[in-house]
């Protein structure tokens, strides 16, 4: 057991932290939000230069062969700057499907493109009725000769407005909520029958509603098994939750620091408000909650590659519960300790709070994962 970063990991962390400190100040972020894509193409290229876009891909595919720890470190740094770019969507989620589901030929074709920052991906799984259930899939994929025809709608697709390919789940068999009969398909965004409508999410990122109207796809659009795609989805989701835990940690940590700074400088009743014991204790509770989140983000990095899927999902649900709980407590406390100022668009703090709120919502909120964990018999099964 060893919690120290390797020299390489430390270098990677330092390079991104430095880049973001330099180019991702709050004022920069506001500017990026006003650009055509609502994020920064310049930063995207900078991530590519740093190798961040190829991080988790195998070296033989043109990636850097990094593991979940590196991904978590990058996500943490991005969380602390609340970056806007489609890194999670493209590299972690999309990349996950490419790594675990695509053929060697597909990987050879796509990975170098991703690494170079020339190809963006998104994953569409939410449907109007599905809520957080990954297996609730009404979108259909019907066999059409060697290929497939897709029909349906995917909602709240993170960065679906700019992705070159949308990866979607579609039902190849069974009933709407069956766990089998789900396939994963790679859909070119410019395929006939694909329409999409982008919009900002509540935290300032981008989502899209995507309609699939008789979309014809070749046989190789299917990633992995036609009927057993859910296992692939679960695997990628768990890797995504691990990355998201890192991002949440970065956001919480930064928000905690911002709050402490405010407590030290803001004066009321003739003294810094951080000298009031009730506020000190709230700040201490925030730190306890932060350290719990940090521990669980580390657990997530450790378990993201676990082969036993049930055990992995158990741990990831626990992680998501903790991230949700800590994010909510730290976010709400930070606003309360700041007072009105953190409720304004002009102040950085509120944006962390909003991002932490959507992080809880994404891929199932704390209550959802608590229920999942209950159904799986809890963390430590009785012998």
């Amino acid at each position, binding site marked *: 057991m060893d919690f120290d970063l390797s020299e390489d990991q430390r270098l990677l962390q330092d390079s991104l932290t430095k880049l973001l400190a330099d180019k991702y100040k709050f004022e920069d972020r506001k500017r990026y939000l006003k650009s055509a894509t609502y994020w920064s193409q310049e930063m995207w290229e900078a991530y590519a230069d740093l190798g961040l876009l190829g991080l988790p891909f195998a070296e033989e595919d043109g990636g850097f062969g990094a593991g979940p720890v590196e991904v978590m470190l990058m996500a943490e740094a991005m969380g602390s700057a609340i970056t806007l770019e489609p890194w999670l969507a493209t590299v972690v989620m999309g990349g996950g499907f490419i790594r675990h589901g695509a053929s060697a030929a597909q990987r050879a074709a796509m990975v170098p493109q991703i690494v170079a920052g020339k190809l963006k991906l998104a994953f569409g799984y939410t449907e109007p009725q599905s809520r*957080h259930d990954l297996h609730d899939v009404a979108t259909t994929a019907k066999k059409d000769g060697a290929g497939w025809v897709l029909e349906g709608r995917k909602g709240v697709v993170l960065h679906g407005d700019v992705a070159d390919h949308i990866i979607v789940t579609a039902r190849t068999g069974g009933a709407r909520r069956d766990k089998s009969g789900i396939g994963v398909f790679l859909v070119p965004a410019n395929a006939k029958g694909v329409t999409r409508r982008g919009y*900002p999410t509540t935290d300032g990122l981008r*989502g899209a*509603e995507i309609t699939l109207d008789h979309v014809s796809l070749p046989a190789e659009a299917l990633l992995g098994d036609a009927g057993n795609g859910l296992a692939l989805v679960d695997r990628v989701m768990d890797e995504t939750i691990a990355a998201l835990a890192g991002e949440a940690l970065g956001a919480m940590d930064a928000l905690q620091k911002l709050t402490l700074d405010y407590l030290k400088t803001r004066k009321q*009743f003739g003294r810094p408000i951080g000298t009031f014991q009730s*506020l000190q204790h709230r700040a201490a509770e925030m730190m306890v909650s932060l350290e719990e989140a940090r521990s669980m983000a580390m657990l997530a990095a450790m378990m993201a590659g676990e082969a036993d899927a049930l055990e992995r999902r158990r741990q990831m649900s626990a992680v998501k519960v903790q991230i949700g709980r800590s994010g909510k407590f730290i976010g709400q406390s930070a606003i309360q300790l700041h007072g009105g100022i953190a409720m304004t668009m002009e102040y950085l703090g*509120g944006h962390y709070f909003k991002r932490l709120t959507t992080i809880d919502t994404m891929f199932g909120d704390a209550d959802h994962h608590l229920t999942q964990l209950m159904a799986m018999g809890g963390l430590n099964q009785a012998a």
Partner: protein
Amino acid sequence: MDLRFTDDERAFRQEVRDWIDANLPADTRERLAAGRTPTKEMQLNWQKKLNAKGWCVPHWPAEWGGRSDWSAIKRFILLEELQGTPAPIPLGFNCNMLGPVLIAFGTEEQKKFFLPKLANLDLWFCQGFSEPGAGSDLASLKTRAVREGDHYIVNGQKTWTTLAQYADWIFLLVRTNPEATKQQEGISFLVVEMNTPGITVRPIITIDGAHEVNEVFFDDVKVPVANLVGTEHRGWDCAKFLLSNERTGQARVGASKDRMRRLKLIAQNAPGGERPMIEDSRFRERLVEVEVQLKALEMTTMRVLADENRQLSERKPNPASSVLKIRGTEIQQSISDLYVMAAGPYGMVGADPDGDRWNEPELAPEWATLAQPTYFNWRKQTIYGGSTEIQKNIMAKAFLGL
């Protein structure tokens, strides 16, 4: 001790309900039911109707349009029905804040000029108390008013000024004697026309994307001395009086009951996995927890109202009143959080950057897209009007003797 409503009270509730149903415009009701605030026009239109009915300022003395024959409980029933419909409630700045201050501290001329216009919303007032450096520590305010002949010259900045963009007038606290030994001394209470030269209003956009509050700048603003309310340098008395009024309204029981009722209806259809959201055990459990808290809040409100029904001389400070602000705001926040849970992933659909909020049914139901912005916005509840921390400080002194 009989805790049931009397037949009279029940009949009055029905009367209010019928009258609201007959008079409230449908678009106003719909907008409020979605959890949005009324437009300026909706507020104006409705308050004038209410005032014509004699239901706008029942807590004022009869000579100014009040209903001294009404019990506190009757007033509460009216408020609860308005909140519960929901319909706009009479503008608090006019009716619950400035009005009572003028009645207690104003000159006869001020009363005659302002009170009818306040009730009828012929003048829209906003409140200039908070300043960038004076939040919880209100008495540390720095905005100066220097007397020059028949005028005060006001310089300084107010912030968190709600709906200043709609306001015709502002009432504010200014420092008239900076030499006073105690911060609370040397403050005066003024009313000022918003179109006076030197006043600038700058919007503050909050994290939900709304423009509700503003900064108001005063740059050599000339205010007639006749606009002083109460005694010069004794404005803190007005402020204290104002802040202690209408505790029962802060609990917003009627509004919370309405939000819960709607949420239960929504959850009967909202997707919740295999079954509708209302069947989700965690959701239902959190919902029921809030219902219990809300019931306790409602009963507590009744207890405080019963106290307000007493003659002033008989009243003792009632610790139950401290529950109202603290739990009332917590409950509103919890309800907003339940909406976020119910909305699920579609709660992430954000505002149109080009202007109004998305309101296109094919994307997501309006209640769902409003869930997160409302949750964001309602964090203010435990901050303004005396933060929860300030409330606890007050309790420790007033009720606990600590």
